[in-house]
C-alpha cells in the first residue's frame, strides 16, 4: 500500500494537526510562518477527509488502519487501530470544517493578544485530540485523545487570564472534566478486565454476550464520562462559565466540536459497545437526559445577561435535541440527530464568531450595555441574523430542516410505540425552539438594534478576515438548510445506516467485508422542499418590491445633516427630546418571566457557581447511572 493511498488518510489527518502544533512551537515566533503552518495543517486535514467522503459515505467502505502494521493476529488485536466508518467520517468532517473556519477567524481575532504561538499550539492540539477521538477504533486510544482535548480546552479557556472569571472557569472545567476522564478510564479498565481486549470492534463483538455486574458499572462510568464531555444536564453550568471566558474562536471549538465528541462517544457506547438500544429503559434514559437538558438550558439561556453565556446555554440545549433524536433509535431519528449536530456546529460557530466580533469591537458582551450596533457593523448584523434565524428554526435556514426532522421522528416514534412520553418530548422540542427564537430576538434587540450608546459611537466594522470566516459559516448555514435531501443522502443517511448495523463495523476490523444492504433511506412523514419555497418567496418578494418601487416606496425623507437632529427625525418621546433609553437585556419578556418566576428562582439557586456543587452533581449523576443500569440492563 503506497504512502499516498486512501488507507493512510485518517492517520495523516490526525498527524497534520499534531505536527502543526509541534512545528508552531518551534517556528511560532515568526508571524507569517505561524499563520502558514496553522492554515496548512487545518486545510490539509479538511482536504484529506473530504476526499474520503465518496469512498466511505456513498461507497459504504470502512477503512481500518493498524498503527505499526500489527494487523489482527491470533484472535486478539494487539496494535492500535483506526477505524473509519460513515459515522466517524461524519463527525470528523464536522470537526475539520469547524476547526478550519475557526482557524481562519482566529488569525485576525487574536491579533491583539500576547503569546499567540501558545494559542495556536493548544488550538491544534485540541483539534488533533478531537480528530483522534473520532477516528480511533481503540477504546484506550479514545481515552488518550479525551485527555488531550480536555487539557487543551482547559488551557484555552484560561488563555485570556485577565478576563473576568477566566481562571475560575478553567479550574471548574478542569475539576469536572477530570472527573469525566477518570470515569472513562475506569470504564475502559473494567471492560479490559472482562474481555482482555481494547480494540473497539472486538469489544463490540464480545461484550453483548457478557453483560453482568461489572460491565454494567463500566457502561455507567463510560456514559457519565462522555456526558461530562458533552456538558449534558448535570454538567451544563461548566459550559456557560467556560464559554463566557474563552476567546470566541475557542468557544466555537468547545461548543461546536468538543460537545460533539461527547455525543459521538455516547453513540459508540450505546449502539456499538453494548448494543442495548433495543431496550426501552436505555432509550428512555437517553431521551430523558436529552429533553431535560434541552428545556432547562433554554430557559436558563433566556435569563442570561451576557451574550456568550447565553450562547453557551443554547449549545447545550441543542445538544439536548441531538441526544433526544439519537435516543429515538429509529433510522429517521438518528439521521435527524446527526443532521442537527452538523447544523449546530455551523450556526453555533457563526453565532460565537459574531459574539467574538462584538467583543473585538466593543470590548464587552454585556447585553445591558450594548445596543444599536447594526448601524456601525451592518455585515456582522446580517451574518448574526442568519445564524439567529437558523438556530431558532426559521424555515429557509438549516436549523429548521433538522429540527423539523426531529419533530417528525419523535412524533412517529410516539405513534409507533404508543407511549405518550414521546408526545411530551415532541411538544417540549417545539416549545424549546420557540424559546430559542425568543432569546435570539432578545439578543438582536439588545445588541444589534435599539439605540446606540455613546461609548460605542465610534465602533467600526470587523476586519475582513473575521467577516470572511463568518460568511463561510453563513453560506454553509444556507446551503445545508436548502438541501436537506442531499445532506440526508450523502452524509447523515449513511451515518445512520452505519449506526444501525454495527455488525459491519465489527467484521471490518477482522478484514471481512460485509456487504452493506441498501436499506431504504429514512423516509420523513411530512413534506418540506425548501428550494421550491424559496423560489415562491423570491417571486412573491420580487413582485411586491417591484410594485412598491413603482409606488415610489423608497422615496423617503431622511435626516439630511448628521450633526443637527431636527425634531422631525427624532424618535417620538411623547413630545420630549429623545434621550438614551435602550430597552434590552433584562427588561425583555416580563410576561414570560413573571409567569415562570418560581421556576426561575429555583433555577437561580440551583446554579450556584461553586465547584463543589458541580463535582457533587457529577458524583450523584454517576451513582444514579450505576444504580439505574444495574436494575435495567
Amino acid at each position, binding site marked *: 500500500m503506497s504512502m499516498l493511498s486512501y488507507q493512510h488518510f485518517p492517520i495523516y489527518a490526525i498527524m497534520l494537526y499534531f505536527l502543526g502544533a509541534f512545528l508552531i512551537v518551534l517556528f511560532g515566533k515568526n508571524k507569517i510562518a505561524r499563520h502558514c503552518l496553522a492554515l496548512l495543517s487545518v486545510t490539509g486535514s479538511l482536504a484529506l477527509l473530504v476526499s474520503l467522503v465518496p469512498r466511505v459515505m456513498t461507497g459504504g467502505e470502512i477503512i481500518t488502519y493498524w498503527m505499526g502494521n500489527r494487523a489482527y493476529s491470533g484472535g486478539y488485536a494487539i496494535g492500535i487501530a483506526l477505524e473509519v466508518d460513515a459515522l466517524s467520517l461524519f463527525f470528523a468532517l464536522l470537526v475539520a470544517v469547524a476547526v478550519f473556519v475557526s482557524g481562519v477567524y482566529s488569525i485576525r481575532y487574536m491579533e491583539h493578544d500576547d503569546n499567540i504561538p501558545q494559542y495556536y499550539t493548544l488550538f491544534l492540539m485540541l483539534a488533533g485530540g478531537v480528530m483522534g477521538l473520532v477516528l480511533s477504533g481503540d477504546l484506550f486510544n479514545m481515552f488518550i485523545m479525551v485527555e488531550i482535548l480536555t487539557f487543551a480546552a482547559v488551557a484555552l479557556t484560561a488563555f485570556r487570564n485577565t478576563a473576568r472569571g477566566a481562571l475560575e472557569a478553567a479550574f471548574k472545567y478542569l475539576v469536572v472534566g477530570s472527573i469525566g476522564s477518570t470515569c472513562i478510564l475506569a470504564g475502559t479498565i473494567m471492560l479490559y478486565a472482562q474481555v482482555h481486549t481494547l480494540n473497539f470492534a472486538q469489544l463490540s463483538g464480545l461484550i453483548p454476550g457478557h453483560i453482568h455486574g461489572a460491565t454494567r458499572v463500566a457502561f455507567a462510568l463510560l456514559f457519565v464520562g462522555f456526558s461530562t464531555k458533552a456538558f449534558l444536564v448535570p454538567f451544563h453550568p461548566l459550559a456557560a462559565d467556560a464559554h463566557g471566558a474563552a476567546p470566541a474562536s475557542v468557544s466555537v471549538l468547545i461548543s461546536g466540536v468538543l460537545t460533539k465528541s461527547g455525543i459521538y462517544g455516547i453513540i459508540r457506547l450505546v449502539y456499538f459497545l453494548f448494543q442495548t438500544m433495543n431496550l426501552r429503559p436505555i432509550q428512555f434514559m437517553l431521551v430523558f437526559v436529552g429533553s431535560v437538558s434541552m428545556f432547562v438550558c433554554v430557559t436558563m439561556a433566556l435569563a442570561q445577561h451576557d451574550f456568550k453565556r447565553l450562547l453557551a446555554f443554547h449549545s447545550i440545549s441543542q445538544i439536548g435535541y441531538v441526544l433526544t433524536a439519537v435516543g429515538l433509535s429509529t433510522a429517521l431519528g438518528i439521521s435527524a440527530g446527526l443532521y442537527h449536530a452538523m447544523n449546530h456546529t455551523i450556526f453555533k460557530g457563526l453565532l460565537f464568531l459574531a459574539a467574538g466580533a462584538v467583543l473585538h469591537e466593543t470590548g464587552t458582551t454585556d447585553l445591558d450595555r450594548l445596543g*444599536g450596533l*447594526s*448601524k456601525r457593523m*451592518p455585515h456582522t*448584523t446580517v451574518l448574526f*441574523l442568519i445564524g439567529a*434565524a437558523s438556530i431558532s*428554526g*426559521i*424555515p429557509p435556514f438549516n436549523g429548521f430542516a433538522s429540527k423539523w426532522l426531529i419533530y*417528525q421522528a419523535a*412524533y*412517529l416514534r410516539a*405513534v*409507533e410505540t404508543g407511549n405518550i412520553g414521546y*408526545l411530551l418530548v*415532541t*411538544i417540549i422540542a417545539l*416549545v424549546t425552539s*420557540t*424559546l430559542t*427564537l*425568543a432569546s435570539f*430576538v432578545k439578543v438582536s*434587540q439588545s445588541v444589534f438594534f*435599539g439605540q446606540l450608546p455613546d461609548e460605542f459611537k465610534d465602533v467600526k466594522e470587523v476586519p475582513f478576515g473575521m467577516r470572511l470566516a463568518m460568511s463561510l459559516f453563513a453560506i454553509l448555514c444556507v446551503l445545508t438548510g436548502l438541501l436537506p435531501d442531499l445532506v440526508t443522502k450523502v452524509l447523515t443517511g449513511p451515518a445512520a445506516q452505519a449506526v444501525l448495523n454495527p455488525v459491519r463495523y465489527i467484521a471490518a476490523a477482522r478484514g471481512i467485508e460485509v456487504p452493506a444492504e441498501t436499506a431504504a433511506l429514512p423516509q420523513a*412523514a*411530512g*413534506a*418540506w422542499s425548501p428550494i*421550491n*419555497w424559496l423560489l*415562491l*418567496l423570491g*417571486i412573491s*418578494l420580487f*413582485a*411586491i418590491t417591484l410594485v*412598491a418601487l413603482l409606488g415610489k*416606496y423608497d*422615496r*423617503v*425623507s*431622511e*435626516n439630511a445633516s448628521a450633526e443637527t*437632529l431636527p425634531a*422631525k*427625525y*427624532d*424618535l*417620538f418621546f411623547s413630545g420630549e427630546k*429623545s434621550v438614551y433609553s435602550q*430597552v434590552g437585556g433584562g*427588561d*425583555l*419578556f*416580563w*410576561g*414570560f418571566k413573571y*409567569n415562570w418566576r418560581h421556576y426561575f428562582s429555583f433555577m437561580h439557586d440551583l446554579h450556584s457557581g461553586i465547584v463543589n456543587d458541580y463535582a457533587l452533581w457529577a458524583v450523584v449523576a454517576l451513582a444514579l447511572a450505576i444504580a439505574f443500569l444495574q436494575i435495567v440492563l
Partner: protein
Amino acid sequence: MFTPAFFTTALLYLGYILIFPGFLFCFVIGLLLCGIDRKAVARMQKRVGPPILQPFYDFFKLCGKETIVPAAASRTTFMLAPLVGLAALVVIQLFIPVFNFRVFRNLPEVADMIVILYLLLIPAVSVMLGGAATGSPYAGIGLSREMVTVLAVELPLVMVLLSVAKAVGNELGTGLVFSLSGVVDYQAAHGSLIGHISMIPAALAMLLIIPGETGNHPFDAAEAETEICEGLLAEYSGAPLGIYKLSHAVKMLTLTSLFVALFLGGIGTGVEHLVAAVGLTGAVAGAVSLILQVLILVLLCIVLTLVTISFVHAVTARLKIEQLFKYYWTVVTGLALISLVLAWYGF
C-alpha cells in the same frame, strides 16, 4: 427545457402566486375581512361604523403619506422588514388548500402543517425586527410583548396541529398525516373533522388562538395604541406602515382559512355533488365548482372573523401581557391537550 409546456406552467404558477390564492386574492379578501371586522365591532357598540372599504382607503392613504425614517433607525431593515413579512404571508396562503383546489397538485408538496406553523413565525419576526430597527423604546417594549404573545400562542397551536395529524392518522391507519392536503382529502371523503369528538376541543382551541396569533383586540398588548403608542409600529409612517397593516389583515385571512382547511374541509364536497347534479361536465364544472368553493371559503372566513375576532373584540378588554400568557398556557392549552389525549387513545 424552454418548451411551450414549461412556459404555460410557469405562467400558471405566476398566476397562482400573483392572482388567485396569492397576492391579489389576499389583498382584496384580507382588507375585506378587516373592514367587516371593524364594521361588526362598531355595530355591536350600536355605532354605524366605517364603510366596509375603509381598510382600502386607509391603505391607499398610507401609500400617499410621506415616510419618515428616524435618525436612530437602521434604514435597510426599516424598509425591508415589511416587504419580507408580507411576501412570507402571501406564500403561506399558497399552501392552504381551498377544499379540493390545491396549488401544488402534481408537484411534491412544498410544506406541511408543522412547516406552516413555522412559516407563520416569519411575519411575526419581520414585525419585530422592523420595530427593533427603529430604536424607539416604545418599539422595544412592543417587541418584548410581541415575542411573549408568539410564545404564548405557539404551544396550543402546536398541540392542535399534532392532534389533527394524529386523528387523521388514526382514521387512515397510516399513523400520522402531516400534509395539509392529506387532511383536506380525508375530510372531503369522510366529512369535516369537526364532527369527531376528539376534534371539538381542538377546534375550540383554534378559535381562541386566531385572535391571539393575529394580535387582535383582547390580545394586542404588543400594539396597544393607548399604553405604548402602537408599540412596534411607533416610528412607522407612510407606505411601510400601510404594508404592515395589510399583512395584519392578510394574517386574519390566512388563519381563518387554515381553520377552514383543518376542521371544515368536508363542506367543499357538497359543491361537487351539486355541480354534478346540475349536469355540468368537464372544464365548465371544474370552473364553477372552483368559484363556488372559493365563495364558500370567503363566507366561512367572514363568519369566523365575526365570531372569533369581532365579537371577542367588542366584548372584552385588553389583557395584560402576563395575563395573556397565563390564559394561553392554561385554558387554551388545556383544551388542546384534551383533544390530543383523546386523539391519542384513538377516539
